[in-house]
């Protein structure tokens, strides 16, 4: 009888790459259905064209280069689907076809395929077609969330991603299930909320300076602007932003692997998206911003490698230094262990 030998562990979690992709696709399905309902058949056409083009490209490339054909893992389909959601529904059908091809061929396989690519294939393709055929790719309208119900059904969504931010809730479920990491989306979201508020604060303070107000209490009171909602916020909190936060920024090969790095990356995403959005619009801003963040992702990763386990961090060292100076009889219980 021959047994199987392998290195430990001999039991693993069942989760695999295919599951991850399929669950992302499922998480996007409600949104697709809603988009098809509101935009009609053209939306369906774009989705199908993009997905088919992406999958066919993957099949073609892997056949030609004599690699294992991996269309079954759903990655090409996921890329195609995500791309379709970013194309205006009145674009001609060849746009999603070229887009799907470009995403898989250049975005994915030129860089070495799954896990090796550095730039999110969806964004690579989107940025390319957006700048190459801007006439077709300009969203019909740039929405903003005027009232709370707009989160349910976005007011004037220009792209399919926007029809209903609330339907992106599948993304939250993915985070809850730990299919995607929470650090990037949380940091990203927090930054996106914080920056408009900080702008509000800054503009309040600069206004006071301009008026020549000297009373420090007045400046202090500006702190309470954080309680108000910045007028910028409704422009930022749109479907495209949520889609970027939950689905694009969390694409794992394009974000750092270190824990600290992921937080930093989320913040960088937020800052870049906000800057672009502030000067232009948040729909394009989300994708251009994250694309630029992709470019710095690797650099962030290299600079946030953790130190050897048990190495004291700077605050710890300072704490230890201070504690060492206190005579032991005065010390609290906490240091008793040392």
């Amino acid at each position: 009888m021959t047994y199987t030998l392998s290195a430990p562990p001999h039991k693993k979690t069942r989760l695999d790459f295919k599951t991850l992709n399929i669950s992302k696709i499922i998480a996007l399905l409600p949104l697709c259905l809603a988009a098809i309902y509101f935009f009609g058949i053209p939306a369906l056409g774009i989705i199908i064209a993009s997905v088919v083009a992406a999958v066919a490209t993957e099949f073609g490339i892997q056949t030609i280069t004599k690699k294992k054909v991996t269309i079954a893992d759903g990655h090409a389909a996921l890329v195609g689907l995500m791309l379709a959601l970013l194309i205006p529904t009145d674009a001609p059908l060849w746009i999603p076809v070229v887009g799907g091809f470009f995403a898989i061929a250049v975005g994915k396989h030129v860089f070495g395929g799954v896990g090796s690519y550095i730039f999110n294939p969806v964004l690579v393709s989107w940025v390319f077609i957006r700048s190459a055929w801007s006439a077709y790719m300009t969203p019909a309208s740039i929405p903003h969330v005027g009232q709370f119900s707009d989160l349910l059904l976005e007011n004037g969504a220009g792209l399919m991603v926007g029809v209903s931010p609330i339907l992106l809730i599948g993304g939250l479920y993915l985070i809850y299930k730990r299919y995607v990491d929470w650090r990037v989306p949380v940091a990203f979201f927090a930054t996106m909320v914080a920056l408009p508020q900080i702008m509000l604060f800054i503009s309040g303070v600069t206004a006071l300076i301009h008026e020549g107000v000297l009373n420090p209490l007045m400046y202090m009171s500006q702190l309470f602007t954080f309680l108000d909602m910045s007028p910028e916020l409704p422009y930022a909190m749109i479907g495209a932003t949520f889609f970027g936060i939950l689905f694009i920024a969390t694409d794992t090969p394009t974000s750092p692997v270190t824990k600290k790095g992921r937080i930093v990356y989320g913040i960088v995403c937020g800052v870049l998206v906000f800057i672009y959005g502030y000067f232009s619009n948040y729909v394009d801003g989300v994708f251009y911003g994250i694309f630029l963040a992709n470019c710095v992702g690797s650099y962030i990763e290299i600079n946030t490698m953790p130190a050897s386990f048990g190495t004291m961090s700077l605050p710890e060292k300072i704490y230890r230094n201070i504690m060492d100076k206190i005579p032991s009889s005065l010390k609290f219980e906490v240091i008793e262990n040392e």
Partner: protein
Amino acid sequence: MEIKTLDKLPEKIIIPLRQHRGAVCEPLVKKGDRVLIGQKIGESKEYYSSAVHSSVCGEVIAVEESAHPDGNKAMSVVIQPEDSNESVPFTPCKDLKPEKLAEFIKESGIVEHYGVPTHTVLKPKGKKIDTVLINATSSEWIGGTFKTPKEYASQVMDALKLLMKAAGAKKGAIVLRDDDKESIDAFEGIEVDKKKLRVAPLVGSRKVGYYYREQNSDIVVLSQKRIYGKRILNFFTYNVTGRKVKIGCDPTDVGVAVCGIKSAKALYDAVNEGKPFFDTVVSVEGVSDKMEYISVKIGTPFKDVIDHYGHTGDIGKIIANGVRSGVAQYTDQVPVTKGTTRISLQKPEEVIRDESMECIHCARCVDVCPVELIPARLAVMADQGRFDECRQIHVENCIECGDCAAVCPSKIYILQLIRYAKDAIEMAYSDMPAKESSNLKLGCGCGGE
């Protein structure tokens, strides 16, 4: 509860002469000799070594290389057992002086389940031990080694005192697993020096020192979360005592001796009955719906243990020491050794044969790693043979818990790759002069800390 044993004698008993880290024992018997239960059959003059005893009475049929559950072969004494209980005389020696105790432990062949001879943990050369910890976070002992919870608690407590005596340590602690109600109940209210102890959970930054004060006792019983891993000692020490053990050092460098339940029990038996370490309890998984515990003689082949349960059906994988960090075996003729804690069987359809794909940088491995490594990075670097860079990102820190490989959705053999890198690094620096390699190799730098 009764301690279960094998129904019938194995056809042969294979006792490896290397059941501990350190010097391999020289065989004291040769082919054709008749040996008795408890007879010493292997021994080494080196300090860093431990004696090996026969677990049965019978005839030595070979002294040869034979399969060892750690995966490689080892010189072993093969004995054909007789149906007889003839043993060497066991003499309890309860009042040994502390100085003699270490020698006695070596003679009795007591070894920690992580491989190190117990006496070298208690009396490490050139270091002083002030605290002895018993790691009792595995709960398979009641009903296996110990008949009742009460017996479990009292014997382990006695053993701890013996260990402290041997080490000359003032303080001691027993660490239980916090979800293991049975053991916690057993220890709750146990009396030490006329004081009733409470099982205290290790929470937050309160470490063992706090509890010594709180309970006003030199011995405490604690509970903590379960941790796995092959090289967890440093991690465990830090968790319990708050003392950081640097890489390349072991707990003894910071004055802590970590012992297991198995060695504690063995010491208890050796002192109270004079019986050397020749039988052990293993848990068996995969033969029935639940975990089975059985006391077996050291040297019993896995096959006999499996047959004891009348296991039929195909076996895909046999694993020694648990599915998380254990070693898969290519034959069922490997013997149970002092370090064997568990035998796991997997049906062919249970065996994982996932093909690994490219790392998708999902960072799940980073999130689970208890020692803050970047396993994904280590894995690719090892794969590409960039061992120097592995070292730069602290590959030696890995406690080989295997969590990273277990959660990887790309099914990368991360732990295997890490071990590959460690092995290569060790090879590369083994022939370097000590001075040059001291900052590269795992030389101890704990000294003052």
